[in-house]
């Protein structure tokens, strides 16, 4: 009985350990919850979009028929999750070869700061390994013109708006050239 108990316990631990290890390392992980929320007031949570969600899940939920113009190439300046998007959108609708556009070069700092405020006010925030350096963590703002929710062929543009700040917005908010 003791040997059987030991075998059963050890086997359960090994199987559970394997599943946990695979869950943590081998499969996509977005986020499980929002941390560090600044308020629990319902109106502020809703109005200021205090709840976080990853860009991937937001794309899946709200831009199912969209085109992801320039998420970049993972490992070469692109979002770490960019190749996951191929499963849903296909190669025709995800421009992995198109790099993320850095808005800091083409706009003055005041314009950028003002635009970042709009992104913070209207968008969902999440954190992700920085496309320019996966060892560091960056904030990603995800926002879109709500009138275009679930619009077929809506184009989502990836931009850099700060040293550690990126965004994904629809092309009514930012215009860049190119096709997927």
């Amino acid at each position, binding site marked *: 009985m003791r040997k*059987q*108990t030991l075998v*059963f*316990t050890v086997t*359960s*631990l090994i*199987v*559970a350990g*394997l*599943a*946990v290890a*695979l*869950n*943590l390392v*081998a*499969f*996509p*992980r*977005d*986020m*499980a*919850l*929002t*941390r*560090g*929320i*600044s308020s*629990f*007031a*319902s*109106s502020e*949570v*809703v109005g200021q*979009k*205090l*709840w*976080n*969600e990853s860009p*991937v*899940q*937001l794309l*899946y*939920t709200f831009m*199912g028929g969209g085109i992801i113009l320039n998420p970049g190439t993972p490992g070469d300046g692109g979002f770490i999750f960019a190749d*996951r998007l191929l*499963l*849903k959108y296909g190669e025709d609708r995800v421009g992995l070869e198109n790099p993320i556009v850095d808005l800091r070069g083409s706009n003055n700092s005041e314009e950028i700061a003002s635009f970042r405020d709009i992104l913070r006010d209207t968008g*969902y925030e999440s954190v992700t390994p920085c496309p320019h350096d996966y060892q560091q963590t960056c904030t990603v703002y995800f926002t879109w013109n709500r009138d275009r929710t*679930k619009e077929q062929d809506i184009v989502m543009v990836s931009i850099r708006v700060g040293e550690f700040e990126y965004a994904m917005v629809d092309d009514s908010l930012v215009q860049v050239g190119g096709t997927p």
Partner: protein
Amino acid sequence: MVNWPVTIGLGVLQFGSYLLFRTNRIMSFPVAILLFVFSASLVVLLKLLAPAVNATIGLLVLCALVAVLGFILLKEKSWISVVTALGAAGITMVVFVSSQLITRFWGLSSIGFGDGQTVLNISESFQSGIYAKPDALIGLKRGFGLPAYQSLGFEGEFLVGFLPIVFLAALVATYALLSFVVQNKLVRNVGFASVVVVLVSTESVARHIYLMNTHTLLWAIFAVLLTGLLKFAGGEKDTSTWAMVLIALGTGSMLRADNLLIMAPVLVFLTWVMRSESTAKQLALWAATFFPFAAWATVLDFGLPVVGLLGFPLIAVAAVAVGWLLMRLMKLDWVKDKTMQRSGVVVLGLTVLVAMMFSPSFWTSLENLFINLFLGEGLWGATPLVSLVAYGVLVVLGRGPSSEMQKWLFAFVSGTLAVLMMAKFGDGLSQSATLGGFARIGWGDSLNRMSVYLIPAVVALLLSRGEKAWLNFEQNKQEDHTKTGSGSKSRSQR
């Protein structure tokens, strides 16, 4: 920082629940949580009808009534019973206080989700005693019970720290189900501990710890209902089990309109296994399922064409009549346990057939379901694959005919999957932008999120097979000893 009125109310409910559910004390905690949700919903309904009602005081009064009822119904009024019930209440309160403190200290909250934001808007309006009725379908879909109990938070806030308690209740309810299904303590405890660790590491499940939605409550509700189903099917009939089933059905009904469809298979199964009980007890199941929904739908001013606000009360009465008809049909000779157990698979098969014939995106949906469950985009990680493989191995090791409990669990899983698909098709029909599929890629897909409803049944199936494997191994050892002349008596298998 700490919402003391709600904390005390929850403690008082736990006290009453502990006394009332003597035959399954572990289940008293999840049932207390369901009672809280139901009571809170009732009080908010009253407040909407009579704005002078103070929701918090009303809740405390209801909680006290439950506690008094528990004490009155306690057959042997010993100090030990009261003290242990107080202990249970104390532990529940400490856990809830801890959850509130941890949640506030670390600023923990739900992931961003459109449905959740709608719930917050509704709960905020409930705090003001008003209800801005949205379009009918959205209003019925967003439901009532969740924004109702969330409105018991501090002024302007939702009920901080309560959602993790619901998650804990779902886990405890699952363990309580296992306490009935798996008799071997080692298999049950080691198995459950392993399962919990894997579930918490599964991001799709971990999201539900703080998710502003009703899924975790339904997980707990189904664990309670399954326990009741298996107890009655096994011939264990007691009033407290019937009462906890009523509470679970009533709470599910208070939450959302589509729960009426989603709970339908288990309601039918429960009606069957309770066929030797009185007509009143059986009909009470149907009343508990439909009348709470009719109450909130009517108070919130949802009516139907022609009959207006009488619409949903009439539907509730009609549903109870359907229940009575079903009870008559169940008296036919050809209706047996086997018929009912197979009906789950039959309904699933028919649903899939209809979907194949009429949904242009059936195969795409199937592919999406595969991507969600096995390729990670539904955030289930390796858990479905490891579970399937583990189950396959245990079926081989624990070979033998399925037990009656396992047959009921299969019936539940297949029947519930069918109605989840039907609910999804219903969603699609109401939103012209969708293609009529039953699954889309991503965690946000409702079928992907609602898969947590199946966790109690799947875990019970897995561990019951584990127990069978254990018994087979023991029996083989006994037979080996007998063959070699060691001579010990063989044990009878379950």
